[in-house]
């Protein structure tokens, strides 16, 4: 899953090395409109529904956090 997320990330925001980073939001790598396109891609890819409540820095600061969030949403369904 992490690999796929990385792929999507580099599509949304080319030219950034996302691996191993844990400050994607805090450091401002991902702006709010990047988040929007990222969310719509993730929703399509993993067939989940990321809602507004999930849009907090803790869920998007790292690839691992995103994977964790998606797993949680998959489980909820």
């Amino acid at each position, binding site marked *: 899953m992490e690999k796929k997320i990385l792929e999507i990330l580099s599509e949304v925001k080319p030219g950034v090395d996302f691996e191993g980073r844990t400050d994607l939001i805090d450091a*401002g790598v991902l702006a709010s409109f990047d*988040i*929007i*396109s990222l*969310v719509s891609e993730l*929703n399509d890819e993993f067939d989940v529904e990321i*809602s*507004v*409540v999930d*849009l907090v820095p803790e869920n998007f600061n790292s690839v691992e956090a995103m994977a964790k969030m998606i797993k949680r949403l998959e489980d909820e369904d």
Partner: protein
Amino acid sequence: MNFKENIFLIAFLPIVLLLYYILPKKARWGVLLASSLIFYILSSGIFTFIMLGTSVTIYVAGLLMQKINDNFKKQKSAEGITKEEKKLLKKKATNKKKLVVLAIVIINFGLLLTLKYGNFFLGMVNSIFGTAIPPLSLILPLGISFYTLQAVSYVIDVYRGTCKADKNFGRVLLFVCFFPQIIEGPIGRYDKLAGQLYEGHSFDYDKFMKGLQLMLWGLIKIMVIADRAGIFVSNVFEKIYDADGSILLLGVLLYTIQLYADFSGCMDLVKGIGQLFGIEMADNFKRPFFSTSVNEFWRRWHITLGAWLRDYIFYPISLSKFFANLSAKAKKNFGDFLAKFLPSAFALFFVWFINGLWHGAEVKYIVYGLYYYVVMMLGLLFEPLFVKITNALHINRKSKPYFVFQVIRTFLLVNLGMLIFRANTLADAWYALCAIFSKFNGDIFATSILSYKLHIYDFIVIAIGAVALFIVGVLQERGHHLRDEIAKRNIVIRWTIYFAALFILVIVGAYGEGYRVADFLYAQF
């Protein structure tokens, strides 16, 4: 009552602090509530009921949603219920909750719109239909633009489930009217702030001292730099048609410095006051002038407003079904880049329109918001082109000179925004912008710079102040925590620094004879 006035600093605040730490921990939040109400009543009198009304509505709304949730849970766990029925129940409950949120939004923003924008809309109606309805005599209750956002966020957070409805009205009320934040923010969130307000903090010497230091720093920013620059700025903008282009340019530049020093200084003051009570409030500034883009600037300037607009306007709009469909359609018809761009562009329009309008009931504020929207959209649209150009010119986009170039570019764009923000009318702003280029005679070096009620020494103080802010900014950008680092030094160095700061405030502060106590700039919004 203004935070930098004697009545607050040597009367109100010390009394509240004393009571807070004398009373048992359980009663301490009561001190905060009582003092906040007194603070509010003293500045808004009978109109306090408007703020109280807002607090009651959100309190009731929270409880209502809690009840809907509890009912839903009860029905859900009833025996013999099918999955379909459960889904239906959930939908019903959500719809009910949506209705509650809608009612709260309509009531509270309706109130804000009427009080703040009533005459603006009336004027529009008059000019469109040729009617002559006289303006209403409206009174703006203290901090209504700030506490309305804060209050509504509580209801939406309860709806979203990020925080629980509070059964204690006093707590909700305190969250809305906590006195340090009421004048100009920061706009707090219930999950982060309410608990801290309610919890009785024990006296922490180090934290207390740090709070005092932060207050001192904020006061210096406001009284030494902002209030001084403000005299020049208001005189320039009063008579822009007489001024030389160079004076106008300096006026805009000093306004940017003034607004930053005033607003961020007030936030330091507010945060410092919070720390005296052991309360950590949200950051509103993160050295915005080191931003490499306008977009980044707005993530570091008035952070809590940007975050509010993002969480409660931008995200919900762009994640709504309507937008998902739009985005899918765009993908089919326009290709990847535009598919990414269009929905954001659409949602961001609302964000910036509201951002502009929030600042004031005038056309220029709307233009101010949309100016940033246009700059940001152009930036996004042309980003691929920029990349190509820099690549062709073999410019390293990660090099230091390029970073400096970006920072200066952002600074200039922000100054243009400030001009729109400060000029009395849009026509004035346009005139000033043209005059900066066409009427530039360099009068600044002649004596006319001194005809704006500031002495040459005052300009020197402002210049030194700006450089000091810059140096502190650079150090903080490099990861220094200055207050902690000072605290680690020996007592001679430490006290020298503290006394120097106090001396500067007392002697160089622009207060007393010749300087009127200026209001906080952002308090009028």
